């Protein structure tokens, strides 16, 4: 319906339609105001529909809604409460893609209490070890006491990594927990001699193959790092 056809509806019916659309103003509104309100609402809804209903996104989202987007709480947690922490010192490392990993950790209460205050030049870190045969290189990521997870950029694809959750206090490092090892996946074809190269030219970049730049449409910007 367009504005003209809406305005041609008797005022009473138009007001009823507007109320159905959520119009709450108790005062006497004129036809134009009501028609504009209805049109605006319908357009908003159409836009939302269009955005939210891409089949390839919706079919997945409708199946796997595992967390409330705003609170970050797992879905249904109000009905079946899940404890926030398990009070165990532990760190877990997960591969996301050839260059990103996700880590989550916890520090048990006893250990937490023993941690020196920040004022005493203590800081928590994630120590990222790259454990290739050529030698063990590492770098540190400072984290806050309240943090419990982090996305980590890993410089090398097809490479072994391991993470330590540690504390540096008065220049001395001590490890609180060590993660499981991971290996980052390859981001492209393995080196190859003359292994049917023509076949591989068939995988055009438009299918997201052969290029590490393509990002599937469901991937959103990561929240941290």
């Amino acid at each position, binding site marked *: 319906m367009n504005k003209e056809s809406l305005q041609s509806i008797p005022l009473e019916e138009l007001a009823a339609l507007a109320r159905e659309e959520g119009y709450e103003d108790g005062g006497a509104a004129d036809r134009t105001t009501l028609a504009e309100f209805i049109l605006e609402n319908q357009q908003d809804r159409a836009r939302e*529909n269009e955005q939210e209903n891409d089949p390839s996104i919706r079919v997945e989202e*409708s199946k796997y809604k595992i*967390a409330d987007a705003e609170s970050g*709480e*797992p879905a249904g947690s109000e009905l079946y409460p899940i404890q926030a922490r398990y009070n165990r010192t532990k760190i877990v490392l997960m591969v996301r893609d050839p260059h990103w990993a996700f880590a989550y950790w916890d520090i048990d209460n006893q250990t937490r209490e023993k941690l020196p205050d920040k004022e005493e030049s203590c800081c928590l870190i994630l120590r990222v070890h790259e454990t290739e045969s050529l030698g063990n290189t590492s770098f540190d990521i400072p984290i806050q006491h309240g943090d419990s997870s982090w996305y980590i950029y890993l410089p090398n694809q097809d490479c072994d990594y391991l993470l330590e959750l540690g504390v540096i206090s008065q220049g001395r490092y001590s490890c609180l927990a060590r993660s499981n090892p991971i290996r980052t996946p390859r981001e492209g074809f393995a080196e190859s001699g003359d292994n*049917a190269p023509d076949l591989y030219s068939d995988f055009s970049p438009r299918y997201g193959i*052969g290029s590490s730049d393509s990002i599937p449409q469901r991937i959103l910007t990561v929240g941290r790092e």
Partner: protein
Amino acid sequence: MGYLALVLHWHLPYVRHPEHPRFLEEDWFFEALSETYIPLLSLLERLHREGIPCRITLSISPTLAEMLQDELLQSRYLAFLERMIELAGREIRRTKDEPRLNRLAEMYLERYRNCRRVFQERYSCNLLDGLIHLERAGIVDLICSAATHCFLPVFQVVPQAVKAQVEVAVQSHIRNFGSYPKGFWLPECGYYPGVEEFLKAQRLPYFFVESHGILYADERPRNGVYAPLYCPNMVAAFGRDPESTAAVWSSRDGYPGDPVYRDFYRDIGYDLPLGYLKDFLPAEGIRVSMGIKYHAITGPGDEKRLYNPKAAAKKLKVDAEHFVSQRIDQCARLSALMDQPPLIVCPFDAELFGHWWFEGPQWLEAEKDSCGFLCAPDHPGAVSGGGSQSADRPTLLLELGKQGLCGSLAGGKQRLGVQTSASAGYPHVRAG
């Protein structure tokens, strides 16, 4: 010469809610039954009756299989159909002065009545019987998926959870279908190196991975995704073919986006006054899709033309022929580069056919007239055209996998934790 393997993955999460008289999420299940599962089963039965040597792989997730045989959900589905038949009847009365709309309303009424007839009379309310019948007739290969359809790489750090997911899936499959699953569907094709050990332990000979799982293997696989790649423990991995699947799945470039096909978004649940719909909505004042949609995709924007089923049917035939001719060309191109016939693997979420792409089941059926991929490899009209393969081969020709051992598959490019909200659940993944 080549082969095409169509794999349809049937999955819905477990949404049975006996504690509520009506529950919105159960409607997803009922919609999928009406729009996808019943039409697909009917199609396969028709092909079987017509003697078309069709053979496809169906992956049925344990959560869905359990719901399909659940008596409460079966009775609720009949109530859902009664509501939809009542609504379609009202639509016929409402549109009596608009012949084109009126014919569409009649189409929906007939569809829902047909669902009720097939569901009650043909399958005695249990679609598992239909699947069992088709498997015994050699029309489908049934495979299973993880017990709760969890993304297995997340559970890599808790191997006993992965083991349980696979074991329970196999037990559920045997209980529901009376047969051993022929292979395994990794949820979301989520592979990590080592997951194949749990499949091997359950005697599951194959699974599917995303294209890059094969292509980025430790050694460049000689035949790309066009032959299975064996893990060191001899479990076979089949890779998705990006070219053929994009033609069907892509909402932008694929067939389902054609302007003549039925639009998914315009729905009477959003178009008609709430007062008119109130008896049919799951909760007062909350608009949802009702499944009755009168418009064609037309193009971007809100202005939509009315759906014309005849025009859509005409286009379906063209698209089916195009798909098949493209596959024949693809096979010819690949055959010249390979030392064995190419196998093109096309896995899809089953709900694409019928639910998202209204004409999807008819498109599949149109393939049979176009020498299509529903045909067994030995069918004269099949893409293979070779005529040398036995009709009773498994859908997926494991013996084709001559690539040999190529070390481990590439895993992990799964983009875990792609949204911070999803990662909130990971710390709860833990042993005991």
